[in-house]
C-alpha cells in the first residue's frame, strides 16, 4: 500500500458530504429572533454572551434560511475527518475569525465557505469564532492507525524539519505538541490527515491560500508528496495535550 493511497481513498467522502450538505441549505432553521436578542447583549470583547450568540449561529444558522456551521463542522466542532472538513473546536478564536474574514472578503477561496462567510457580519464572525474556540478539543476519531514507519517519518519532519530540503520543523511555529500559537499558527494536533493534505497541496501548488499564507507556501515547497502524507498522518494522531486549550 502506498503512502498516498491512505489519503486518496478518503477523498471521495468529501464530495459525498458536500452533496448531502447542499440539501441542508434549503431548510435552514429559523432563529432570527433569538439571534437578534442575543446579539444585542453581546459585549465588544469575546465573552459568554459572544459564545452564546456564536452557538446559535453555529448550530441553527445566523438567520432563517441560512445553513448552520454545525451541518458540516458538527455541533461539537469535530468536523468530519473522513471528508476533510476541518475540526474547529479549540482552535484559536482570532484564527477562526481571521479565516472567516478572508473567506468573506475573497482573500481565501472556497466554494462552500465563501458564500457562508459573506452571510455573516464581522461581529457574527467573531461570535461564531468565539463559540468554536470555546469548545473542548474532541477525542480523536477511531480509525485504522497508519503504518508506524509513516508515523515515524511524519514525527521527524514535524519535530525536526529536514535540513537537506530546507524544511523547518512544523513544531517551530505550531508548537512541539501541535497546539498552535495564538492567532498566528493554528492548532494542528488531531486535525484530519485529509484536511492537512489538502491544505499542504494547495500551498505546494503555489497558492498562498490566505494573506498569512506566505510561510506555509514556502514550507510546502520543501515537502514531497510522500512527506506530506507522512506529516499529515502524524498530525492526525498527535493528541498529546488534547485537553489543553491553545
Amino acid at each position, binding site marked *: 500500500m502506498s503512502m498516498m493511497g491512505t489519503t486518496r481513498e478518503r477523498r471521495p467522502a468529501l464530495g459525498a458530504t458536500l452533496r448531502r450538505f447542499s440539501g441542508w441549505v434549503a431548510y435552514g432553521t429559523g432563529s432570527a429572533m433569538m439571534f437578534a436578542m442575543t446579539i444585542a447583549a453581546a459585549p465588544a470583547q469575546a465573552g459568554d454572551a459572544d459564545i452564546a450568540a456564536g452557538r446559535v449561529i453555529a448550530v441553527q444558522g445566523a438567520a432563517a434560511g441560512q445553513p448552520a456551521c454545525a451541518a458540516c463542522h458538527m455541533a461539537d466542532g469535530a468536523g468530519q475527518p473522513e471528508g476533510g472538513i476541518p475540526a474547529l473546536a479549540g482552535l484559536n478564536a482570532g484564527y477562526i475569525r481571521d479565516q472567516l474574514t478572508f473567506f468573506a472578503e475573497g482573500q481565501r477561496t472556497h466554494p462552500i465557505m465563501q458564500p457562508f462567510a459573506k452571510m455573516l457580519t464581522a461581529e457574527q464572525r467573531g461570535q461564531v469564532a468565539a463559540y468554536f474556540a470555546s469548545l473542548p478539543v474532541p477525542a480523536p476519531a477511531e480509525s485504522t492507525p497508519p503504518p508506524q514507519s509513516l508515523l515515524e517519518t511524519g514525527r521527524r519532519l514535524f519535530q525536526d524539519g529536514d535540513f*537537506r*530540503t*530546507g524544511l*523547518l520543523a512544523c513544531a517551530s511555529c*505550531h508548537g512541539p505538541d501541535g497546539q498552535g*500559537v*495564538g492567532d498566528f499558527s493554528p492548532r494542528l494536533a488531531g486535525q484530519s490527515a485529509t484536511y492537512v493534505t489538502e491544505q499542504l497541496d494547495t500551498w505546494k501548488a*503555489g497558492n498562498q491560500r490566505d494573506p498569512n499564507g506566505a510561510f506555509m507556501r514556502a514550507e510546502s515547497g520543501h515537502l*514531497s508528496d510522500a512527506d506530506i502524507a507522512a506529516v499529515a498522518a502524524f498530525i492526525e494522531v498527535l493528541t498529546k495535550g488534547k485537553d*489543553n486549550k491553545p
Partner: protein
Amino acid sequence: MKPIAMLGVAAIAAAGLAAGAWHLAAPASADTPPAAGASTPPAAEQQLFQPPPDSAIPKGPFGDEVRKGEAIFRDTGANASQFVGNDLRCSNCHLQAGRLAGASPMWGAYVSYPAYRSKNGHVNSFEERLQGCFRYSMNGKVPKLGDPVLVALESYAYFLAKGLPTGVKPEGRGFPPLSKPEMPADYARGQQVYAQHCAACHGPSGQGQSSGGKVVFPPLWGARSFNWGAGMASVKNAAEFIRANMPFGLGGTLTPQQAWDVGLFIDSQVRPQDPRFTGNVADTRKKFHDTPMSMYGTTVNGAVLGDPASTPPFGTVPNAGAGK
C-alpha cells in the same frame, strides 16, 4: 539620536564571520525542490558543506553523546536547565539545530576553534566558546570545563563537522555579511518593520509566544531573552542574522535597510545586564561596548540602556521552571 546616527560609520570591530557571495542565495529561500518549479540552485550553494543527518549518528557511547548534545541543543532549558537563565534554546539562533548555513552552523564553529577572540583577549578552546553562549546568550551559569553538558554539545558539533577541514573558513560559517545600510539605521523605521514582520510571532513587546506552555517563538528582549553580553546584542550581528533568516522560513525577503533598522530597534530594548558589569554603565560601555554596533549605555526613550534601575539581572538560574 546620536548613537543611532553612529551606525552609519564604518567602525565595525567584530570579526567578519563569513565571506563569499553564497549568501545571495540564502538556503532557506533557495532550497525549493524542482517539483515546486524552482530553478537549479546556484553553483555556490551546491558547494556548501552538507552536515550528516541524524541517521548517520553512530551506535555506541559516542553516538549516545551526540544524541544527548542534539537534545540539549534543541531544548536547552529542559536538558541543561541548571545552566539556562532564559527562554531561549541554542536552535533559536543556530537554525535547523545547528546545521543551517548562514545561521552560525555548529559545523562552521567547530572547525574554527581554538581561536583568538578579542572579546576576552586570549585563545579560546571550542569548549570555552560554548561557555560563552551559556553566560551571555542563555543568560545563565557557565558549565565548568569538562561538564557533561559541554562534552555532549562538543560531541554533537564534532559530529556535524564530519569531513570538514580545519584551518579554512568554510562557506556558510557565521552569518552572511551585510552591506552597510544606505541610510543610517533608524529606530522608528525599525519599529515599523518589527510591527509588520516580527510581532506576529515574537509578540508586540518582544516577549515571545508559547504553545501549550512551551516557548515556541523566542523572546527577543526583556528578562527572558539574551543579555547585553550576547553576540546578538550587536546590531550588526542581529541585522545579518535577520536579513538571512527572518521572518522564519522567509529569509532574504527583508531589504538590508529593513534588517539594519529592525536590528537596531531590537537591540535598543531592555534586556538582562551584561555579566561583565563593572558597577557603572558608562565604564562598562567603555570597556565592553565601545562600538557603534552596541546600544548599551546609550539613552533610548528617555532611559539609559543597562541602567541597573531598569535592567533585569544577569544569570538568573535556576530557571524556576518558567515556561518549560
